[in-house]
């Protein structure tokens, strides 16, 4: 099993798309390494014959009728946009 010592807060914060200050990175490194060490107790458990549970209540293939219904208008959907124009969300430039 992976070890708590492998955890690298600076790298994972990049994966999570959250900039951190150096001070936050150092603090999270220590605090989350402590949490991961605490969780190493999960290694004791024999799970070789157990199926992973995605839910407490197993449910499969939930279907309903494919029936259209009223939903938000374009104006309503855009009502909280931080930046919009011409009934569209304006996004930060993606291609150079």
């Amino acid at each position, binding site marked *: 099993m992976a070890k708590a010592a492998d955890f690298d807060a600076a790298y994972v914060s990049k994966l999570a798309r959250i900039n951190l200050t150096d001070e936050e990175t150092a603090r999270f490194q220590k605090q989350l390494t402590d949490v991961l060490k605490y969780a190493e107790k*999960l290694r004791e458990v024999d799970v070789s014959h*157990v199926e*992973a549970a995605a839910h407490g*209540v197993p*449910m499969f293939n939930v279907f309903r009728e494919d029936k259209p219904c009223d939903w938000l208008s374009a104006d309503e959907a855009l009502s909280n946009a*931080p930046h919009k124009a011409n009934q569209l969300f304006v996004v930060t430039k993606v291609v150079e």
Partner: protein
Amino acid sequence: MSRSDLPALTIADLQSLLRRKEVSPREVLESLRARIEQVEPKIEAYLSIDFEAALKEADKVDVNLPLGGVPIAIKDIINVAGQPCTCGSKILAGYRSPYDATVINNLRAAGAIPFGKTNMDEFAMGSSTENSSIKVTKNPWDLSRVPGGSSGGSAAAVAANAAFGALGTDTGGSIRQPASLSGLVGLKPSYGRVSRFGVIAFASSLDQVGPLTKTTRDAAMIMSAIAGQDRHDSTSLPEPVPDYTKNLGRDLKGIKLGVPKEYRVEGIHPQISAAVNAAVKQLESLGAEMVHLSLPHTDYGIAVYYFIATAEASANLARFDGVRYGYRAKDPKDLLDHYGRTREEGFGEEVKRRIILGTYVLSSGYYDAYYVRAQKVRELIRQDFVKAFEKCDAIISPTSPEPAFKLGERTANPLAMYLADIFTNTANLAGICGISVPCGFAKENGSQLPIGLQILGKSLNEARILQIAHAYEQSTDWHRARSPIAKL
């Protein structure tokens, strides 16, 4: 009764006055407004209130509906059309909900009036409500202490008689623990019993909406209104919704209550152990039979919970990217800068910490070791409860290992804060239902601090745990005690 006494009423008593036309829904709202103006500066439970919109609803509501004319406070993670919904986060400052969550539709259909949004730990991540980025809510029993969390605003409002009842959400204990610390009844429904549509997701396989109230009857009334299948939530269960008030008043003869040996852990506050032991004796005197049993994987609950909850949160909170709603960082130089700074500036510390932990346990090379292993141990925890409920009708424990702690006491140590959930979060992992009901007081430095008894039931057995909680409640006076702020 004078109008200023109305906010002290239970929902059931308020409703009889409304039906007998002794008060009007408008008078009820006006009395609540005056009450909130009086106590809110002390407790800081609310993030936003819209009495004008509520008064319009009050003037046309049918008081003969199940909750006709009853104002209900709503945790600020649940969308109410036209109202702000911040989740206690700066990243949602200025956001207004374009639609009603299904639980709000259901409350309105039952005649209830959502009038205000309550404070919470940011995105429901916390056990004290101190992680709100907006304000710090105080416990009405002792203003130097936390109300519990994450539904701490809902708990403080009801405990201060500044709400008749409230909705909260419970992902690892966030209804039951604040109910316990604030001297209230708090019910976490079985997973799938209440729709999550329109509730901003924290951990989708664990989240449920439920009531915080002064009595078990009030909790049953709200549950009857909000429960049920919803075409907008494929995890909501199709089983018919009973009238949850129907079993109230039945005795406990023949009821078997499980006492798990794993719940006798070190570190439980001695006055809490004493209160829960006394409650067990009281339940026996009411006819219940105690069964000693074992939930062998209990000790792994916190570790499993913090991997699964943070993994799901890291995926759910990816939607806060500053594109379609919420905060966006100023003048980003490129897309990575846009995401990185939007989320740096918008999220608070605990949310960042949990997203990073969740991202890590889902990342390549660690997914099987952490996330999949946690899901497998989750299945063992679920099976523990399935086996336990073959021997008993419900399981008894403290709700929280300690009474309300001092503001600021835990904020520096996240792991210590996580351990506050030891008795509550296995119920979320297993998808079962649980309720906290007042069972005494701890005395500390001259303060009376409420203690909660937790009663866990198998999936869809809300009526049974409400029956047990009600029988206990009616045989004691704990639920009649009111906080010092409620007496102002």
